Each structure stands twice: as C-alpha cells, then as structure tokens.
C-alpha cells in the first residue's frame, strides 16, 4: 500500500487524505492504541474529581434528600393532583426510555448491516442505554409513592393468592424493561470482554489485575472463544432490535390503551419508537463529542463519525416530523370536541402554547438548520447543539403528552392545571446528574473505545491502487470460508 504511494509521489497525498478521512485506513500499532485508551482510563485529574463530586452532590440532593422527603411525607409533595395524576415523573420515565434507544438499538442496527464506521462508537452508545434504563427504571418506583411496596409488582404467590395482573400494560412495561435491560447489559458486556482482558494484561497494580481477570472471565482469545463470541453477538444483534422496538411501543401503550383524548391513538407505538430513536441519537451525538474532547479520543472519533451520526439525526428529524404531523392532522380532521379543547389549550394563544411552539422549533427548525450542511454535522459544538436542541424538544413533547394532555379532558368541570413542585424538579435534576455521573465513572473503569474491534476493522481495510489513483477497500477476512 505505502510502497505504491512511494513509487508514485502524487499518490502519497491521496493516501494521506484517505487516512485522515477514515479511522480504519489510518492504522496504528495495537500496543499504541491499547496504551492510549488505558491512559485515558487511568487519568484522574482535579477537574474530573470536581465534576464527579459536583454531580454526586446533585444526585444526593435529588435522589436522597428530595426523594427521601417525598417518601416521608407522601406523594402530596409532588405537583400532581386531579385530573393530572401523571406528571414529570412519567414524562421523565418516557424520556429516559427514549434515550436508552439510541445506544443498543443503533449499535445493533449498524452491526447488522455491517456499517464499518460504527466500530469506535458502539461501546459509548451501548453504555448510554444501560445507564438511561437504570434512570428510567427508578421513575415507576418514585411515582409509586409508597416505594417500599415495589415487590407487589413481582410475581410471587402471596398469602391472599393474589397474583399480579400480567395483562396490565404496567406489567408489560416492567417485563419489557427487564428484558431490554438484561439484553443491553449483556450486549455491552460481551464485546467488552477482550478489552477487559487487555486491561488485565497490562495493569501493574495487583488488585486491579485481579479484578480485571475476574471481569474478563479469564479470556485468552482462543479460536473457540472468538467464534462463539462472534455468533453470540450475531444472535444478540438480531434479538435486541425487536426487543428495543417492543419496549417503547409498550411504553406508548401505557397511554394508547386508555380512553383519554390525545392518548388513544393507533400511531402511538411507531411514533414513540421513532421519537425514542430521535432523542437517543441526539444524546449519542452529545456523548460522543464529550468523550472525544474530555478523553482525548480525537484519533478514534473523527469527523466521519460525527458526519454519519449527523446524517442519522437529520433523517430522524424528518421521520419524527412526519409521524408527529400525521398524528396531529388526523386528530384535527376528526374534530372531536375534547381534542378541540386540548388544541386550544396548547396551540394558538393557549396557556401551553409556548411549550408547543418551543417543541416544534427545537425538534424541527434548529436540527434541520444545523444538520443540513456538512459543516454543521462535523463541527463538534454545532452537532452537540443540535443534539441538545433535539433532547429539549423531545422532553417538551413528552411533557405535552403527559401532564398537558391530562389537563384537558371531556369534562370542562374537571379541567386542571399542573405545575411541577420543587421536589419533582430536584428529583429530575438528580436523575439527570446520576446518568452523567455514571458515565463519568464508567469512563475511568472500562475502555470506552472497543480497541479490538477498531484493530479488526483496520486489519480488514486497505488502500489499493486502481487506475491512476488510490481507493479504499475492505477485505472481509472474518467471512473467509
């Protein structure tokens, strides 16, 4: 490859350009990559400690003090009241389930279609899913009020011979989240094993070595280990996609199975799945930019990755707009009185109109304006801005679906107005901080870049001379028969 470039000096420039554009063509020794990723893991700076303690403080404030206060005094300290019995806790639950979708689902889709550029981003994405699910899983417990009764949801034959009702959509939720969390944890863990072994091999501290030996299950990289890991990942890839789709569909059924105006909709299932992927990809873009900047992974996370994530975000913007407008227009055409009340409340000059228009601006106008151009997609702060905008918009969408919709119903005498209480706001901040804190801690525990997958990709990618120029090619040696 390089010898050809040496023979033709003009082509050396082409080769450099190809390498700069694609991580998988820009090969580095494995040893160098290992140490670079391990150094980033082991670096605990003062800034890192300040950030970790600050986030820990917010988690304590929100999830220990505020939640503890609610447990002591009851759900009355939250802003929910008749007719709005579902407030920000449920909006947060839906939001975090949505965030969880980008990681495992996007990773599985990219793996299934053999998108080679995915290699350095999958782990950061999969970790996002696990943490988002952990945060989401807390909200039904918070919303229960009497959290200590959570085990009533679990299937056990109690003294009254009263089993949980498995046909309730709330029970569907629990099973779907349990299945997705289990699958996502394993999906994150399996490709991590060879990298945990790498950390084990090159750690000098005895305790660390022992810990990583346990975590890596004594992995050595034998033919049988690689073969079965490969097949298991292939099975997981195709199993996790329908599971992910089922999770958010079931979350949408929490609403759509009711008779509430604004909730009863046949399009809610796919609309929620699209919205979940949309917010998840937005969050993934922000996470990748942060990981790239603060862990010094500019070599691994390049313009090509931001550009591709940006293209997925742009496509999802159109999908979400289409689904949203589809739902809006059919309901508007139906001219049901209760829905007219709801529309007046949240559009035109209604009290909730600022939320509605802010949702449209942050979900449609800002992302399209930024992501339309390559410069917008490949500039880290711009794609982050688009990701943050999408997540603000998607949060507003969930807020509109939950408490705003419940504020107006078929009976004007039972209309209400919901304002989140300080306890609800503090718990929400605490859970957001928990998500970020878990990520910050993970970055110092496991390699956030799948080094072996990057090396595998680099081994398979070559630069070949075709005619008068050099072109990139892929040798699919893992498919050798």
């Amino acid at each position, binding site marked *: 490859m390089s010898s050809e470039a040496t023979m033709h000096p003009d082509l050396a420039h082409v080769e450099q350009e190809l390498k700069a554009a694609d991580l998988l063509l820009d090969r580095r020794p494995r040893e160098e990559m290992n140490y670079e990723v391990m150094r980033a893991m082991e670096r605990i700076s003062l800034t890192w400690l300040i950030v970790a303690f600050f986030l820990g403080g917010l988690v304590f404030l929100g999830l220990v003090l505020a939640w503890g206060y609610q447990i002591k005094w009851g759900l009355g300290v939250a802003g929910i009241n008749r007719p709005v019995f579902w407030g920000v806790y449920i909006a947060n639950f839906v939001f975090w389930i949505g965030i969880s979708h980008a990681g495992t689902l996007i990773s599985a889709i990219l793996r299934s279609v053999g998108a080679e550029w995915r290699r350095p981003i999958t782990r950061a994405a999969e970790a996002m899913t696990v943490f988002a699910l952990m945060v989401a899983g807390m909200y039904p417990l918070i919303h229960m009020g009497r959290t200590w009764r959570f085990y009533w949801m679990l299937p056990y034959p109690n003294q009254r011979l009263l089993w949980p009702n*498995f046909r309730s959509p709330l029970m569907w939720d629990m099973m779907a989240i349990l*299945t997705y969390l*289990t699958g996502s944890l394993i999906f994150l863990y399996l490709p991590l094993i060879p990298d945990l072994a790498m950390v084990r091999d*090159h750690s000098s501290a005895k305790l660390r070595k022992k810990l990583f030996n346990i975590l890596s299950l004594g992995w*050595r*990289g034998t033919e049988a280990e690689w073969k079965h890991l490969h097949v298991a990942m292939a099975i997981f890839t195709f199993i996790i996609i329908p599971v992910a789709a089922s999770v958010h569909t079931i979350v949408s059924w929490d609403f759509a199975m009711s008779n509430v105006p604004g909730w009863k909709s046949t399009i809610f299932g796919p609309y929620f799945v699209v919205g979940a992927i949309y917010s998840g990809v937005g969050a993934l873009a922000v996470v990748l930019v942060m990981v790239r900047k603060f862990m010094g992974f500019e070599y691994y996370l390049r313009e090509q990755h931001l550009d591709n994530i940006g293209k997925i975000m742009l496509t999802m913007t159109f999908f979400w707009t289409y689904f949203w407008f589809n739902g809006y227009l059919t309901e508007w055409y139906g001219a049901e009185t209760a829905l007219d009340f709801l529309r007046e409340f949240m559009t035109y000059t209604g009290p909730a109109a600022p939320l509605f228009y802010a949702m449209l601006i942050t979900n449609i106008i800002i992302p399209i304006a930024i992501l339309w151009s390559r410069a917008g997609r490949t500039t880290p702060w711009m794609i982050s801005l688009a990701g943050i905008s999408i997540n603000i918009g998607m949060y507003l969408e969930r807020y509109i679906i939950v408490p705003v919709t419940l504020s107006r119903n078929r009976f004007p005498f039972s209309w209400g107005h919901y304002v989140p209480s300080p306890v609800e706001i503090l718990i929400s901040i605490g859970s957001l901080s928990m998500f970020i804190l878990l990520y910050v801690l993970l970055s110092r525990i496991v390699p956030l870049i799948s080094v072996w997958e990057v090396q595998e990709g680099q081994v398979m990618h070559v630069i070949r001379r075709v005619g008068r120029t050099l072109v990139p090619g892929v040798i699919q040696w893992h498919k*050798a028969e």
Partner: protein
Amino acid sequence: MGDRYLALFEDVEHAVEALGELRALGVPEEDLSVISGIPVAEAIMGRPKVANLMARWALPGALLGLAAGVFFTIGTPLMYPIQVGGQPIVSLPPSMVIIYEFTMLGVILATLIGLLAQAELPRWREKVYHPAISHGAIGILFRCDESCFDQVRERLRGLGAFELIPVDRSES
C-alpha cells in the same frame, strides 16, 4: 504426547507458515491451537472449523421463555382465578405481549449461557497465555516432545517467532 509450548508471532502470515511447519514436523492438528488478540477466521489459518452450536442453546431458551410466559399469563389466572365483572379469566391478546417478552428473555439468557459453556468461560486459572497477545501478537500453542522441540525451535525462530515459551503442564 509431549510438553506444550507457546510460540508468539507478530503477524498472521508468519503464524500461518509456522502452523504449516509444525504440521510438516508431524504435530497433529488436535495438538495445535491459535490464540489471538482479534478474531482470525479458521480458513485464514488453515485450521479446522470450530463447531458452532449456539443455535442449540438459543432455541431451547426461546421455548423455555415461551413456556414461562404461558405459565404466568394463562397458568396463574387459572390456578388462582379472580372473577372481575364479566371479564374472561384467560385472554390471549394481552397475554401475547408478556409471552413475547419472556420468549426474548429466554433467548437472551440461553445465548449467554451457551456462549459461556461453548467457549468454556470463565477460566480464571488458565495460564497458557501471554500478554503480548492482547497487543496484537498471534500465539500458536502446540504440543511436542523434547526431540521434536529441538527441531521446531530453530525453524519457528526463523519464521519470526519472537517468544517460544514452554508451558508447565501442571498449570494448564
């Protein structure tokens, strides 16, 4: 039978040549194995295919999950019937969701168990290994007696083996 040795190579090509050399010296295929830092297809190394039996784990897992789903959604209401105003004790459409999730959970758990069983993990005490492998080296583990090793040593060095380690049989 003989002692086991681990030879380390920097690249696949030299490792493939070394495997050929070992075969030529009479080391049987079952006494050879390859350890690597990235997956290398058996065909590239000229090695026999590793049997893939993962589907045999996933399918029973799916069936077990399905059975668990049916038990919870149909079995338990029949065991402990609670009459609610004219509603049926057993209803299939809402049960399908739980049955589906249990089936998927069954596949997920069975695949994990299958992977651990097939790849013989965890193996925390296994010592036949070298940290250079996770830096990208290819290891060839082979078994041969002392006279054979004397012949092999020079040839493997000539083929670029940068480490040739005798493996203590009691540890393996």
